[in-house]
């Protein structure tokens, strides 16, 4: 009989052998949505923190500060001129900007308090250097020495390393949380499968009597769990995405700095969406696989007990 047979159209499509909405179905999906929501948020925060760290690190690595320890305040101008000359010779492409005595003094005010600096106090000369490449510290120090200058060069690598280490821990925490939620989803799926097998014992009995193998019955459980997992994963990820967008682009984004955490250009946003999609699929796969495993084990156990 061909599919175009008009009488075949009268028959409704095949019904699922297991009830579409068992008693615990809705609450179980709700639990899965919450877990997927938490996992998605952890993923988005991890990626956002990682992205922010890279941006800050890039900015830090491009900016360096050179301090010139002046021999006396009266030598500020010639010694600063010599220092700038050395920098321009060594880094012709770099942007070099020297701070005035007042600007330099403002930097040390937190340590000295509000009192005015004595006129003869040799406040170190500060020069900001922006360069694409990393500053050749040893070469510069030697050249400053040859020019009779005492210098301290800070390329902010210490802050950058601290930042990377902290963000690395945050990312690890995010990955741990996603893994933790994955383990919880597995446990929930196993529990739900056992409960489902118990509550649908009569149906399982009929299927067994009709010759259904364990794999066939487990396949039904896998289908049911996969559907639940996909709904939970997509809804949870969707909700997390909505919250992420509200935090990032909503009215409070500027004050708490969410915007800088979320924004990363089209490619990064695309990767975020892809990651959420993959997370939903992984969630679905975890639920399905654990349901299949639990069903096979439970059916084997029931048979041994019979």
């Amino acid at each position: 009989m061909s599919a175009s047979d008009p009488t075949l159209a009268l028959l409704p499509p095949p019904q699922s052998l297991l009830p579409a909405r068992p008693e615990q179905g809705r609450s179980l999906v709700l639990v899965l949505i919450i877990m997927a929501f938490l996992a998605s948020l952890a993923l988005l925060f991890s990626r956002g923190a990682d992205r922010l760290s890279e941006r800050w690190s890039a900015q830090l690595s491009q900016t360096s500060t050179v301090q010139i320890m002046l021999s006396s305040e009266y030598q500020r101008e010639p010694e600063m001129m010599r220092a700038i000359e050395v920098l321009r010779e060594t880094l012709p492409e770099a942007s070099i900007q020297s701070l005035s005595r007042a600007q330099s003094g403002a930097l040390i005010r937190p340590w000295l308090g509000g009192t005015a600096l004595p006129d003869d106090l040799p406040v170190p000369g500060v020069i900001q250097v922006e360069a694409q490449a990393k500053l050749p510290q040893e070469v510069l120090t030697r050249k400053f020495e040859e020019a009779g200058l005492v210098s301290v060069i800070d390329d902010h690598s210490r802050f950058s390393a601290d930042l990377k280490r902290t963000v690395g821990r945050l990312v690890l925490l995010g990955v741990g949380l996603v893994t933790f939620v994955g383990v919880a989803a597995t446990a929930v799926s196993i529990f739900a499968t056992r409960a489902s097998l118990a509550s649908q014992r009569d149906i399982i009995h009929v299927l067994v009597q009709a010759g259904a193998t364990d794999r066939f019955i487990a396949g039904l459980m896998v289908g049911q769990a996969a559907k639940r997992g996909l709904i939970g994963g997509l809804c949870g990820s969707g909700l997390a995405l909505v919250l992420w967008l509200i935090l990032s682009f909503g009215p409070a984004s500027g004050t708490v700095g969410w915007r800088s955490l979320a924004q990363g250009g089209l490619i990064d946003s695309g990767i975020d969406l892809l990651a959420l999609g993959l997370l939903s699929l992984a969630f679905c796969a975890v639920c399905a696989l654990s349901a299949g495993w639990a069903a096979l084990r439970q059916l084997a156990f029931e048979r041994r007990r019979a």
Partner: protein
Amino acid sequence: MSDPTPPTLKLERIGLRYGRGQEVLSGVDLSLEPGSFTFLTGESGAGKSTLLKLCYLNLKPSRGLIHLFGEDLSALKPAQLQILRRRIGVVLQDFRLIDHLSVWENVALPLRVAGMSRADYRPDVDELLNWVGLGHRMHALPPTLSGGEKQRCAIARAVINKPDLLIADEPTGNVDPDMGARLLRLFSEMNRMGTTVLIATHDLALIDEISARTVHLSEGIIGEGLGPFGAS
């Protein structure tokens, strides 16, 4: 060398007890030859349903051997047992219909489980539903059926895949005499086509309809003939 035509079902010295209780069945020997038609009688509580459960592989005996289609069941793996189950049609007293599936889907279940295509088995299901008088109820759900309709649906499900062995527990208990006779004709027809039939029943009129072997179960022990059950 094995017997070329082994019995469809052979029980040897079967004993069954639940837990540590007394034996429900004790030293039961029963052999059903291929293509035979057998009635199983006995008083209520004699162990008929338990014996049938052993026959359709729902229970394992505490002792003794069961050979089904020439295979020693104790030597088979679970997946092999499932393949054997597909050759058995079972009609249970409580019907065991799946409530969320339509009558049509319930009847088609064994074929669906066997992996057949819907288009292939559809004519058979339609024809059988019309034969048992459920053609007009094919889209109904079991909770909306009468007891007799449920029974006919369960029988249709049991015979849809033309089983080699048909086991029925009081198959005409809930239908009127006319439908009972009609269902018995269905069983006879299947038997004529080679299906081995084992029917547990209290219905002496049903037994009188067909000249078939009758075995009697009393206090867990089996014997030929109607036994005291027929005399009472």
